[in-house]
């Protein structure tokens, strides 16, 4: 796949279709693959990476990149295309300046899950018939492939690209992934249990802002948390409230716009399941206002910018059984 992508990129650069390419290159370790912009065939040959650790969603980078001179080639996985569409809808990216090549999605690997097995010094991985062969500085280790995949891939919502100019590989389908199971499980707890669960999770927050910075829905010119006049500007997490406030507001700000790409939880250094907050909103929106998938198209009205005269009342929250 990596070879095919490099060749495609080189071809599109050579024939002048695009001026730049956004893809990924290796970071310090084999498993920290980060988005990168390439301008020449040589750079691509040397550094372009696409492997089982390549999970990062590059669509957010296109907010800036698509406004630059010339056209850019973006390789987008199915989940990334939803983010891209959503950004197009919000006029955050310039669609005409991006040439999208749809590439197959994951499942991608979670290095943390490999490390959790006591496997360190990872040099590379190979998926052999769903057994993961891990090349480490200490020799080869193995583990079942599916035990190492990212949570966000385990609950993948779609293998279908919702926007592209051309595809490499076959087109997939929208999946029924039971992605709301965990939300439902929490909903079925008592209020005290839910409070304890979230207190436990959110108190781990170190306010590093990684979730916000990676989120393709968080592209504000100036984030409210960075704005001293907003009344909610960044504060150190000296108090439990601070994390609550931050995460509720963040989730609310992306409600109806979050495509459920799962990047927030993927990048959280404290492994807080932040995507569950967003998924809770998605689940509520689906059940209360009709199925809505942000990023599925570029024209539909976002549920929070819309209404029906016979929408349910807020008391629907109270009607959901006992607390």
């Amino acid at each position: 796949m990596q070879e095919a992508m490099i060749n495609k990129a080189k071809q599109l650069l050579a024939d002048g279709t695009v001026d730049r390419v956004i893809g990924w290159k290796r970071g310090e370790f084999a498993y920290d693959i980060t988005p990168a912009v390439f301008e020449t065939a040589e750079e691509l040959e040397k550094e372009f990476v696409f492997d089982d650790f390549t999970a990062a969603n590059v669509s957010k980078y296109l907010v800036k990149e698509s406004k630059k001179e010339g056209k850019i080639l973006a390789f987008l996985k199915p989940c990334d295309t939803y983010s891209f569409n959503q950004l197009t809808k919000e006029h955050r990216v310039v669609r005409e300046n991006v040439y999208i090549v749809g590439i197959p999605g994951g499942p991608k690997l979670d290095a943390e899950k490999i490390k959790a097995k006591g496997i360190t010094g990872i040099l590379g991985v190979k998926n052999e018939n769903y057994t993961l062969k891990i090349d480490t500085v200490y020799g080869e280790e193995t583990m079942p492939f599916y035990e190492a995949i990212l949570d966000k891939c385990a609950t993948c919502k779609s293998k279908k690209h919702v926007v592209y100019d051309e595809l490499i590989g076959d087109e997939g389908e929208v999946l029924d992934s039971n992605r709301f199971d965990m939300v439902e499980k929490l909903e079925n707890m008592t209020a005290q249990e839910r409070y304890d669960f979230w207190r436990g999770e959110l108190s781990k927050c170190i306010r590093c802002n990684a979730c916000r910075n990676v989120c393709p829905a968080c592209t504000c010119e100036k984030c409210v948390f960075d704005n001293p006049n907003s009344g909610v500007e960044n504060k150190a997490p000296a108090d439990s409230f601070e994390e609550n406030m931050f995460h509720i507001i963040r989730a609310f700000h992306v409600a109806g716009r979050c495509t459920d790409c799962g990047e927030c939880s993927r990048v959280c250094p404290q492994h807080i399941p932040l995507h569950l907050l967003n998924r809770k909103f998605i689940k509520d929106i689906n059940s209360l206002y009709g199925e809505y998938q942000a990023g599925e198209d570029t024209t539909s009205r976002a549920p929070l910018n819309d209404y029906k005269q016979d929408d349910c009342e807020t008391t629907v929250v109270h009607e959901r059984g006992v607390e």
Partner: protein
Amino acid sequence: MKRIGVFVCHCGTNIAATVDVKAVAEALGHEPGVVISQDYQYMCSESGQNLVKNAIKEHNLTGVVVCSCSPRMHENTFRKAAASAGLNPYLVEIANIREQCSWIHKDIASATEKAIILGKAAVAKVHLNSPLTAGESPVVKRALVIGGGIAGIQTALDIAEAGFDVDIVEKNPTIGGKMAQIDKTFPTLDCAACILTPKMVEASQNEHITIHSFSEVADVKGFVGNFTVKIKKKARFVDETKCTGCGLCTEKCPMKKVPNEFNMGLDNRTAIYIPFAQAVPKVATIDPNYCMMLQKGKCGICSSVCSVGAIDYKQEDKIIEQQYGAIIVATGFNPIKLDKYDEFAYNQCPDVVTSLELERLMNAAGPNGGTLLRPSDKTHPHKIVFVQCVGSRCDDSKGKPYCSKICCMYTAKHAMLIREKYPDTDVYVFYIDVRTPGKNFDEFYRRAVEQYNVHYIKGMVGKVTPRSDGKIDVQASDLLANEQLHIDADMVVLAAAIEPDKTARPLATMLTTQMDTNDFFTEAHPKLRPVESATAGIFLSGACQGPKDIPETVAQASAAAAKAIGLLVKNSITCNPCVAHSDELMCNGCSSCEKVCPYGAITYIDKEFRMPDRTTAIRRVASVNPAVCQGCGACTVACPSGAMDLNGFSNSQIMSEVDAICK
């Protein structure tokens, strides 16, 4: 440094009896920025206001807090007082310590404590108030009336009478609307055409009125005083400026089998036609669906007989654009379709007709020249059954939940006219109840019953079955006598519910006006502003706002005209300064705000920005038109970055109030 004055009102004993006003003044005097804190018996009185004015001058105040009655009561009083003392009126805040404190609490200690907190919140807010200036926006002195029925005609005539130019847009080839189809009017029984057609002529001859017939509103942009409207003039294939309305073409047209919509399809017209003799404008129109020239390219007779060369087979739809200061909606109503009412056999039997069809059957210009004949065999009906509330006051999805209001009266009229003209005809009326509120209405109904012996039967018609002998079996129940009835009628007349015209819904979207669940336009206030829509500059005339009879329609049409004239006489309008504004540096251009704005006040512009790295970038940013924005604040919450804020109720002002209350 802020210099705030606090003024605590006793309101006689209204406040002072439950709130220790001196303690409130004392406590608020210690709030940051407060330089003077006073109490007075009646702050709204002349001398109370002077107290405020003098303090503003003497202490050079930058903000005023009045602890008194509700701001809905005297906010304006104190704003004016401040303005007369040279302080921007929007630097005044009211703490409501009467309606929301002294009047509802009994314990002096806790009421005083609450009054202090409310005062603190107002002080905290006024710290962040900024001077606001109400902007002005010019008014285009021209009105648009959408719909050329009696409502639209009356509105246009009244506006023209006041000396303003007014355009009527009518979707049909002629103005006149439903009233032109009506035979006689209740309760006076005068001929509808006799009173309507002079008005139509007057409208066509008035130098201030332009009639765009066979036209539709295609697009509306802008705001009160300054709407830009695109009007689509549909191709009628006849040059309006040349056609004299001689009618020769309609006589010679070989395609004579086109259902005549003016006569409710009860007879036929030609493919080129003038809807009726008194049509305005009296200009022929070619129906492209039936014209052989337009369909097959063969014929051309109308063109050859037209002495002025008005026929133009190549004519195309044309869009014209015009500026207006006010728009009046007069889109009227239609009877509902009765397809779903199989029990009344409307689709099976030609002698089951709607009331509007009956109007045409009885009209001198109708299919039978005014003689009431059964559509099926052209014989005189001797027994006629009227069914009331067909689709009105309905709780199922077939009909409408509301009362159509006019049916009781027009049915009484029909019954009376039939009994008058054909005394040998028996007339039965089945009703749920007879509703006759209106001047001379009940008297009229009683005449039908008492003088004309119309059989009014309280009860429902269950089934209408056409029989092979030409009679119609009407099965009904008489609720008062508690018995089942079978009537072998010659004709059945259904009082079909009326509903807003189908063009109203898309129009409401264009105009950003509100409609109710039945697609009637919603007035700004059901009692106090019945002819205005909630959108400034858009007025409602006639049945588009709800079922109405002719006198009510005309009254509302004139009222809407008066409101529109009230707007048009102004050279400019003062805008509410408490409007939204967008911080361009923070705006993402994401369109969220535009989506929730009920007034279409937000547009986007591509603007060049100097970036921190000294490059320039073009960004899409929101721009609020202060003349259109009404200051609801929906956009401020939809905005993810907080770029959108509201003057007078800013994020920081509201949060400072929250903080003061929760301190």
